[in-house]
């Protein structure tokens, strides 16, 4: 074991960690605003993956431009999912929203498998690698991480600088009070679900630029998102980014010291531990 491997692994882990973070932000934003754990998160990520793939492959558009289209579509998809599956169960016990979002999961996977099969697809696109002595950073990964940072910055600018963003935070914080102030809560909830979906699909699109994809691949990221969200504190988007980085680091560094197959054991072990000893996550969460 030498230092180069350690550094290289840490860098790789962190880069992918940013992308994990974006995916998890989508999940945590939705939970934070409406206390719904979106079990359709994985398939929505997968839609994002295939969005970029299809646009890149059949329109020939640059995948990073395609990402913008995917994000916009994501917003619409999210709003649709909200009204179809979530709105009616928003105040029901958690089991209802868990199952209703899971039903969306089944629909997407069912239709997706029929159309796309479960084959793997690749976005055949690459950027020059960055070679700095011991560490080689692949271009697409670096770009994905940078975009992830950009997305996070945009999300924060949106949530903290725009009126709609503040409405989302207000509704998350106290829905009834928000209504009393004239904030149309239904529309804001739909918007929040839309943005959560947008983040999930954007993350999916980013993943498509670096890794092969298939319709079931979103499931992996959904589970990772759960871990991250718990690490960062349910309902805390910035915590999700940091949680993503931590998960990325674990995935990067643990294999240096032991067999890679121990990574999920550690991840989920940590997940349970955090839930037990500090359910508010490492960085706090919204007040309940």
């Amino acid at each position, binding site marked *: 074991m030498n230092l180069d491997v350690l550094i290289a692994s840490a860098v790789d882990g962190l880069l992918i960690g940013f992308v994990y973070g974006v995916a998890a932000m989508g999940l945590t934003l939705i939970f934070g605003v409406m206390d719904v754990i979106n079990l359709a998160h994985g398939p929505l990520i997968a839609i994002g993956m295939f969005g970029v793939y299809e646009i890149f492959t059949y329109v020939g558009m640059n995948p990073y431009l395609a990402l913008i289209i995917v994000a916009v579509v994501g917003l619409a998809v999210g709003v649709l999912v909200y009204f179809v599956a979530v709105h009616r169960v928003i105040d029901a016990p958690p089991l209802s929203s868990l199952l209703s979002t899971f039903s969306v999961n089944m629909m997407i996977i069912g239709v997706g498998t029929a159309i796309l099969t479960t084959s793997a697809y690749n976005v055949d696109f690459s950027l020059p690698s960055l070679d700095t002595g011991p560490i080689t950073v692949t271009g697409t990964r670096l770009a994905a991480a940078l975009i992830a940072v950009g997305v996070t910055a945009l999300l924060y600018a949106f949530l903290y600088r725009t009126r709609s963003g503040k*409405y989302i935070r207000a509704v998350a914080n106290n829905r009834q009070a928000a209504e009393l102030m*004239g*904030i149309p809560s239904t529309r804001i909830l739909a918007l929040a679900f839309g943005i959560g979906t947008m983040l999930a699909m954007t993350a999916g699109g980013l993943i498509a630029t670096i890794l092969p994809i298939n319709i079931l691949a979103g499931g992996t990221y959904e589970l990772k998102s759960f871990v991250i969200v718990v690490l960062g504190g349910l309902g805390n988007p910035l915590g999700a980014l940091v949680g993503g980085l931590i998960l990325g680091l674990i995935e990067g560094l643990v294999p240096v010291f032991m067999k890679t197959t121990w990574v999920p054991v550690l991840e989920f072990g940590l997940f349970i531990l955090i839930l037990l000893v500090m359910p508010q996550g490492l960085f706090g969460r919204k007040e309940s």
Partner: protein
Amino acid sequence: MALLEVKDLTSGYGELQILWGMNLEVEQGKLTALVGSNGAGKTTLLRAIVGQLFPWQGTVTFDGRDVSKLRPYTKAELGLIMVPEGRQLFTDMTVQENLEMGATPKHSRIHMDRNLAKVFDLFPRLRERAKQTAGTMSGGEQQMLAVARGIMSEPKILIIDELSLGLAPVLTLDLFQALRRLQREEGTTILLVEQNVRMALKVSDYAYVVSEGKVDFHGPSSEVENNPAVREAYLGI
């Protein structure tokens, strides 16, 4: 004609009826107090007025328009604003942001800066704490912020539920003074629910006394204050 008129209103939760035919009128520019024992239905009435609860029967008329079936956010847009019991602030947001959220109705949004200056003038302490997270402030400051947030909406009528609840007397004084100023200087109509009966009757122009979901009696505040029946009903002595 009264700015807000509640007519034969009945409502409740689920199968449970709380309001049994409420009648109430709030005159333009007046400070009207609503007093009554715990469980008399005051908060339920306010919730029905702002639309958090649908009326079963009867009507709520505001500014000459039947608003009985509108959602709270639509009513807020019309200028019907409530400062709810227990403050209900956006505790994770800063004081400034809470105030900005108050300026949601379109007519108030364009005057946001002016109104900000106004509420900071009214509650100088909020100016000092503008960047502080609302949840970290003391109860009194939070109540100030709740009222200030309501004012930011440029309400035609400001409904306040339990203004002094759990507050130290000094702060209560500040808040009542602010309300009086608002009423006198801006001509804002105010409907106030207050457990501090004596105080409420002192500062208000007109008062309604409710019990068991109905209005027991009403009249100019001074009359109500001097009515021995009120003392009887409220202290049992």
